[in-house]
């Protein structure tokens, strides 16, 4: 397997060379369409959900501000491994137990007031936890958070809200 392009557009690649490795800033789905057999490393802005990129056809994901990781990721993907950034959305997100509880209730459509009554905290405390959780999930609203959590295919899935290992 040989490298046919690095951190550059794969637009001009000859499909006949499609068995190589492509490191690209283009959408993986576009590259995959043109080069169905290639190994693809997607170079993306930090925070871009890795899971979606993998589903679109990437074999590896690397942040564009991490130059050293590009070479490492390319080598790993060329060797047949799947690579994602440690801080990607699909990895551990740092949510606290309380944030998980509140998000779990948000998913079910509970209001801030109902959550505050259930958890015996003030509404402003609920809002504070939510702001922190939204920041960690990189979403801006409860609807966006709920959509992200309920989408097990392209989002995070509800499993990340589990509070105990055995659950």
């Amino acid at each position, binding site marked *: 397997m040989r490298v046919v392009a690095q951190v550059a557009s794969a637009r001009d690649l000859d499909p006949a060379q499609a068995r190589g490795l492509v490191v690209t800033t283009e959408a993986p789905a576009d590259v995959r369409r043109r080069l169905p057999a290639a190994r693809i490393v997607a170079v993306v802005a930090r925070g871009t959900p890795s899971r979606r990129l993998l589903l679109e056809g990437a074999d590896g994901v690397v942040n564009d501000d991490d130059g050293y990781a590009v070479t490492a990721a390319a080598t790993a993907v060329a060797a047949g491994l799947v690579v994602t950034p440690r801080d990607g959305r699909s990895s551990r997100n740092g949510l606290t137990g309380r944030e998980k509880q509140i998000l779990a209730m948000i998913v079910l459509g*509970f209001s801030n007031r109902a959550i505050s009554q*259930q958890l015996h905290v003030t509404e402003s405390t609920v809002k504070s936890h939510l702001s922190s959780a939204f920041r960690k999930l990189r979403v801006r609203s409860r609807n966006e958070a709920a959509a992200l959590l309920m989408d097990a295919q392209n989002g995070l899935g509800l499993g990340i809200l589990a*509070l105990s290992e055995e659950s």
Partner: protein
Amino acid sequence: MTTARGVNVADNASVLLSSRASVPNHIVYRSFVNETVILNLETGRYHGINTTGGRILELLEREGTLAAAAARLAEEYDRTLEEAQRHVIEFCNELHERGLIAVSPDDRG
């Protein structure tokens, strides 16, 4: 009126028709068109039950004892009392085993 699996009622003497069932503080649930979702805030786990299960849960909270909930359920679903009682006990056994309801003797006399 079905539950996920059969439970031998005799094996769990703590859940009786005369028992009172309640939803603990760490359990919340919400009914939707096709199902009711129960959330255990201590584990972060969701549990899905069908609409009949959701109705039984509501009746348990409102009526108190399993017997009263079963009587109401028999009326609403046009089933015999015995059939409704069996379903309510099986359902409560499952929920109790999963820690989703609290069961206590009916101490109202």
